[in-house]
């Protein structure tokens, strides 16, 4: 993936965002070319001076002050015990702000909080042009172009692959976020997690962008800069005095319960914070 990113990055340097979007149309063809470029890269002598720095982005989730772990018990804002079985979401179009045009350094990735180490994916690293960046932004979900990709044209390792378990057969688009779990409605210590919570969001209108316009980052050639993006999972279900009652409003596949899908997406977008 990092080769793709660095390649797109190089090309996008001198292009406007508009052109960059056009270019994504041919991303399929590029994937093949990139497979080759990866081959050549690995033949390069290793003593060359690195020309790029590395940005490592970590998504850190907590609930009730603890790291979020699927299968562990947490309590919602309304005091309901819940456990999660699945939690994954797309982030896309990660851009860094500098004096020039914003620089798109990541097309899209699927963040997955699985406890299975083989598929857990809560952080990624990108090769970035050295320099001082004043901030960044990213999309939660996929943009309207990405949302219409054909999953069969991507390898099983791609976030766009059908194996990601996100593709949505009803509309031939992607689900942006999948939250699955259950609530213990009785909360009598018997561990009776019977009420399902299923939040699958999709649709172009739920693609939301989060801007961090004033977060200065220094990227140095050959060095790694870490960006921690933290969020409290419980905040997905409240904002101000507007709290979602998971006891009565716990299932959405977007088309059947748009308000819940919208609230959770909006709250999620607002829940992101930059950590240390």
């Amino acid at each position, binding site marked *: 993936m990092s080769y793709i990113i660095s390649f797109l990055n190089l090309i996008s340097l001198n292009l406007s965002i508009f052109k960059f979007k056009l270019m994504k149309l041919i991303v399929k063809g590029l994937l093949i070319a990139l497979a080759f470029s990866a081959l050549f890269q690995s033949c390069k002598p290793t003593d060359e001076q690195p020309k790029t720095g590395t940005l490592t982005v970590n998504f850190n989730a907590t609930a009730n002050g603890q790291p979020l772990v699927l299968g562990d018990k947490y309590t919602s804002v309304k005091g309901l015990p819940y456990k999660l*079985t*699945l939690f*994954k979401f797309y982030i896309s179009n990660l851009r860094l702000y500098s004096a020039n045009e914003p620089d798109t350094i990541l097309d899209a990735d699927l963040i*997955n909080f*699985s406890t*299975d180490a083989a*598929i857990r994916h809560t952080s990624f690293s990108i090769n970035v042009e050295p320099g001082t960046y004043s901030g960044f932004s990213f999309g939660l979900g996929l943009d309207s172009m990405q949302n219409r990709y054909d*999953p*069969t044209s*991507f*390898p*099983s390792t791609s976030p766009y*692959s*059908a*194996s*990601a*378990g996100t*593709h*949505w*057969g*009803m509309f*031939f688009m992607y689900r942006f976020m999948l939250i*699955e779990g259950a609530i213990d409605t009785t909360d009598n210590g018997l561990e009776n997690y*019977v009420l*399902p919570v*299923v939040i699958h969001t999709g649709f172009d209108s739920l693609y939301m962008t989060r801007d961090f316009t004033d977060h200065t980052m220094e990227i140095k050639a050959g060095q790694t800069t870490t960006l921690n993006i933290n969020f409290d999972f419980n905040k997905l279900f409240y904002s101000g005095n507007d709290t979602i009652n998971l006891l009565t409003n716990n*299932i959405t*596949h977007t*088309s*059947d319960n748009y308000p819940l899908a919208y609230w959770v997406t909006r709250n999620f977008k607002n829940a992101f914070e930059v950590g240390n």
Partner: protein
Amino acid sequence: MLNGCGKEITDPPEPTPYTLAIPAGLPQMDQPADNGLTVEGIALGRRLFYDKILSGNQTQSCASCHKQEKAFADGLRFSTGIDGIQGNRNAMAIINLGYNRDLFWNGRSKTLEAQALEPVPNPIEMHLSWPEAVTRLQGDANYPALFKKAFGTETVDSTLVAKALSQFMRTIVAGNSKFHKYLRNETQLNQSELNGYLLFRNELKGDCQHCHELGSKLLTDNHFLDIAQRFHNNGLDSIYPNFLGLAEVTLDPNDNGKFKTPTLLNIGMTAPYMHDGRFNTLQEVIEHYDHGVKVSPSLDFFMTKNYPDLQVGDRRELGLTPQEKADLLAFLLTLTDSTIITNPAFSSPF
């Protein structure tokens, strides 16, 4: 003769790498690093698949229960092994298994290579111990040479048998059904088939696509990375005296009654249906999804998401009209890729 490194080659030629022709519109199939497809490996696997030498009394082969003319199922509710003992699970169709992450109804094997070691020693299937099977193959007039061609050694062992069988099974790919051709704009669906397709996709109606996944065009979700998304309880039972399904492997009661989602490709050829072959026809399957789904604690939430008032013990009422049922059936019958039963490369080499 010299190879690229200028070293003299005295060994027999390497097996010939084989590139699987994937029908347009299907995803690429990952191949295991230590068992890539080769012409010789596939040929050996095909022979082993059809050879009765691998059963105790030499009366059964894999193909006895996985028949090409039945899209590699056997058409029976339960299959009978060589000792006349009947199993209690329906033989599964061998189609597109190279994309799957779990094998068997309860998912107890994770690779074809591991799966292929099971049927030979299984007392209700071929009932021949591996040491005996290996001795037989080793003493055979043809096999040592065929193993040499495929794997570079005349020494037969069970791992190599499993590898060859797996290579052959990975080549059995379905992706040229009427439905696939429709998606490729090569043909049209008639009105009933099209209505059935929309019903199949519609989350407020059939919602079959949630598990029999469409994006991959494989009509199963067993290629998904997250295991939480790959097994489902589709409401056949609310108590599980005979089969716990996935729970047999995970020992987690939340997994009771969850089974691997079978592909619906060639479903018109693989009756009877479900893990215990309880339904003889697709009509019966449709009746099940229409009003037979039993609500239980481990019932998949996709099955009840539009029915928040259902209680444990209830049955779901989808309320499909006779026309809608006929449309759904018409759509299911567009999923047949007849090359599976006609392709000579999948037939017996004997």
